[in-house]
């Protein structure tokens, strides 16, 4: 029937009805785990899209969990540490993984503050990535959306912009096409094998790693990241070429130590491990002295300011970090400890946590102090020498390259890599 008035009436009614339905669906599925809607089997057990907005999801998750122990760090901690692992003793539970992909040292401090703002934190383990301590990263002049939703500002003042940001979060998580798309994706992903997930405890599983490993092979995952990191770190090395200054951003680590001491939180710092592919990039770009300087200065800082704080160093050429990568075209063989040169798997994360907690575990990492840091640096150099000698054919192309040409060198090495 053609009737313009009726057309407008039906259009308006349908529009309002559909809008209400969209809001209800988004609330039910809760794709970013903002509302804490109970996870429903077949609908929302896994939260793959929370991973796209980790700070949004985790800020609300941590407030609900009110953990006794928090894990802080970048994507490395986010993926590699399982907050529900049985390795965690009962006294330290609940554990929350507040690892945020791409986080900086300042970001680590902010997430730590946010976790402590829940009022229940007793222990904090902060994973430090070496590459976050090369270029100074001062706080931004304006607050990002992610920072606006935090309870407090850096320095401890209350964050006045939080209520507005929370209102925006609620709106964008319910009444947008993106939220609806993500709700639908969330439901669909429940039915695929190995979906990505951000658990309620903040630990993440990345489906893209699993899928890429199965469809493209581990070799491709490593090679892709090798090329990317060689470019990225090459730029950093170029910037640092004329600089012999102190390690950047250690003042933020000092602030982390001071903050935890002021709030009675037991702090452990841990330098994250890297696969030998990544370590070789540092070597060939001339960054290894920086690695050793970082460890030395960090150990000195912890010794002088961190009353009772322990600093673990997992960045070495051990059997874990030098695990061979399957050859090109091999889609079956999986690596055991690493997803790519930067991201360790949960299996290695468990060993690291066990080491930190003093539980029974294979030997990996050492507690760094000013007394043993030189010895540790020399030992890692020796490990590297042994590794290079044992893999000379693979590394030949890389080691012959000038240090400024790391990208090409590593790409060549990656392409030439065969079974070792």
């Amino acid at each position, binding site marked *: 029937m053609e009737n313009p008035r009726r057309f407008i009436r039906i259009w308006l009614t349908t529009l309002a009805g559909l809008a209400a339905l969209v809001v209800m669906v988004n609330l039910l599925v809760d794709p970013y785990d903002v509302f804490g809607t109970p996870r429903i089997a077949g609908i929302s057990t896994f939260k793959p899209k929370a991973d796209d907005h980790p700070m949004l999801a985790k800020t609300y998750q941590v407030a609900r969990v009110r953990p006794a122990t928090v894990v802080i760090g970048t994507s490395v901690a986010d993926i590699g540490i399982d907050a529900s692992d049985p390795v965690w003793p009962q006294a330290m539970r609940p554990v929350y993984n507040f690892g945020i992909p791409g986080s900086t040292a300042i970001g680590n401090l902010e997430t730590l503050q946010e976790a402590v703002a829940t009022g229940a934190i007793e222990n904090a383990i902060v994973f430090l990535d070496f590459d976050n301590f090369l270029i100074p990263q001062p706080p931004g002049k304006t607050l990002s959306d992610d920072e606006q939703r935090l309870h407090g500002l850096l320095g401890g003042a209350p964050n006045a912009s939080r209520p507005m940001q929370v209102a925006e979060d609620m709106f964008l998580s319910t009444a947008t096409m993106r939220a609806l798309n993500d709700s639908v994706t969330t439901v669909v992903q429940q039915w695929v094998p190995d979906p990505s997930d951000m658990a309620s405890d903040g630990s993440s599983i990345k489906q893209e790693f699993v899928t890429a490993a199965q469809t493209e092979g581990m070799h491709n995952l490593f090679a*892709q990241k090798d090329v990317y990191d060689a470019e990225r770190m090459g730029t950093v090395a170029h910037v640092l070429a004329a600089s012999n200054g102190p390690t950047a951003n250690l003042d933020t680590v000092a602030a982390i130590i001071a903050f935890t001491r002021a709030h009675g939180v037991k702090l452990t710092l841990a330098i994250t491990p890297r696969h030998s592919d990544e370590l070789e990039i540092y070597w060939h770009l001339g960054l290894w002295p920086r690695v050793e300087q970082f460890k030395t200065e960090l150990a000195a800082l912890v010794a002088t300011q961190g009353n009772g704080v322990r600093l673990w160093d997992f960045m070495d050429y051990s059997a874990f970090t030098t695990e061979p990568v399957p050859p090109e075209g091999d889609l079956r063989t999986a690596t055991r400890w690493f997803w790519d040169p930067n991201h360790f798997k949960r299996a290695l994360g468990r060993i690291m946590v066990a080491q930190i907690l003093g539980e029974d575990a294979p030997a990996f990492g050492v507690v760094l102090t000013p007394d043993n840091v030189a010895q540790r640096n020399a030992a890692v150099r020796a490990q590297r020498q042994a590794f290079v000698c044992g893999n000379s054919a693979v590394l030949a192309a890389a080691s012959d390259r000038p240090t400024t040409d790391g990208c090409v060198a590593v790409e060549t090495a990656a392409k030439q890599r065969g079974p070792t």
Partner: protein
Amino acid sequence: MLFNSYLFIFGFLPFVLLGFYLLGERQRDWALLWLTVASLVFYAWWRPINVLLIAPSILINYGLARALQRTGETRPTLAKAILTLGIVFNICFLGYFKYRMFIEGSLNDVFGTGFILTRLILPLGISFITFQKIAFLVDVQAGRVTQFSLRDYGLFVLFFPQLIAGPIVHYREMMPQFRAAPCRFDATNVSVGITLFSFGLAKKLLLADPLGSLVAPIYGHAAAGIPASLTDAWIAALGFTLQIYFDFSGYTDMALGLARFFGIKLPLNFNSPLKAPNIIDFWLRWHVSLTRFLTAYIYNPLTLSLTRRRAARGKAVFGGRNTTIPAFLTLLAMPTILTMLISGLWHGAGYTFILWGLLHGVFLCVNHAWRVIRPRIWPDTRTYNQRMAPIGFVVTFLSVVFAMVLFRAPTVGAALMLWKGMVGIHGVVLPWVVLFDLGSFGNFLVSLGVQRAWTSGALLLDATVRIAVLLAIALALPNTLEILAAYEPALGVKPAKTPSLILRWLAWRPTDAWAVGLACVTLAGVLSLGELSEFLYWQF
């Protein structure tokens, strides 16, 4: 205030419409005054200083128009001088704000002058408003516009649905509509308006905007001097062509729909240009109101003047298939290239826009030349059209895509970099996994020189699928004007005499099914409002 914002859709528009309809019930003049004031608020929203810049210009143009009207018949020389003054004033106004920095920068580059480059606040929609004001003065001088008041003129210039990015309208096609508009709620107009606006919103937010993030890194890399591979270059070229296509199409639909809420039909501005079988036809479909302005106020007067001069000297003039080369060059090629140069400059103060205009000028000349030559070598027009139309379409499409790189590239160097990529000079690079999945054919490609990239094949697949789907929509589906043709969505648009099957099926009627379907489209658009993005044509 963006058309695609919560504030506009849920605040400004309902408020203005409510006021317009309520006032219109009592007094039409109040409703039109309300619309003028609302348009001024809309214009001032971003930068109130815009009003201080545009208001004196409106008053000066109105004064000049009045002077023209008084002197037009009795003192034609003075009228001509006033018209010239008006045109110069408007061009200088536009030039000062839009081109000063570009000119000073160019002088610095060429002559080493020491102009300090300062970026001025560019009044919104200045290019569109300037052309409208010039057209108005010309029409007054030519006697095509005889009755006007300051209030009418203000509404004509400021009418917010077309204020920022067109269509470029004529006083004589707008004011009769304003004078005849009922200024009351009209269910048919509102339902047509809702449909047009919803289609436009969906095109902009669902189809155009997602392409921005796809192409931006490639243009950014090209600007940084990083060569683009064949696949990347084509993704950049096709992706941006489709982005601006759906962006401008979406904007135009929204402008048509908004005007229709007030009972006004704006002129045709966008009519599936990518379906054009030749470049002349392309310009009759892309930004139609600009082509109309350039043709009427630049190309035609220039051609007419040159033709008269040649005729007075006894030289051959343009005469279809008997046209001589000098006549073609003087009377068609030169005015065409000059007009398109102005078109390029109008779009932006930069060498890329100038080159874009010149390139289209050359395309048009080649097309016109072929029209002169073709009857001599292929006299049967019917068989020619049957056999050559698909080739014409492909050549036109590729020419448009090729030139569109200039429209998006930040520098000519970046455009060159992408063009080289498009013809394969920078090599062919495919993700490792794609070559691996192709098996022996992948190895064959590698042996031909195809390089492997350690990137995910998912990105290439995603880009390819998106571009293919959008091309299918642009090329295979009827456009909004065709779908709503029975309700004259744009001024003068009538239903096709022999509509296609799909068009008959999709033809819009105010039915229950359309109301439900449209609600879904509207909702998809409204739910995508979260990330604000400007229309590409608003920058002009």
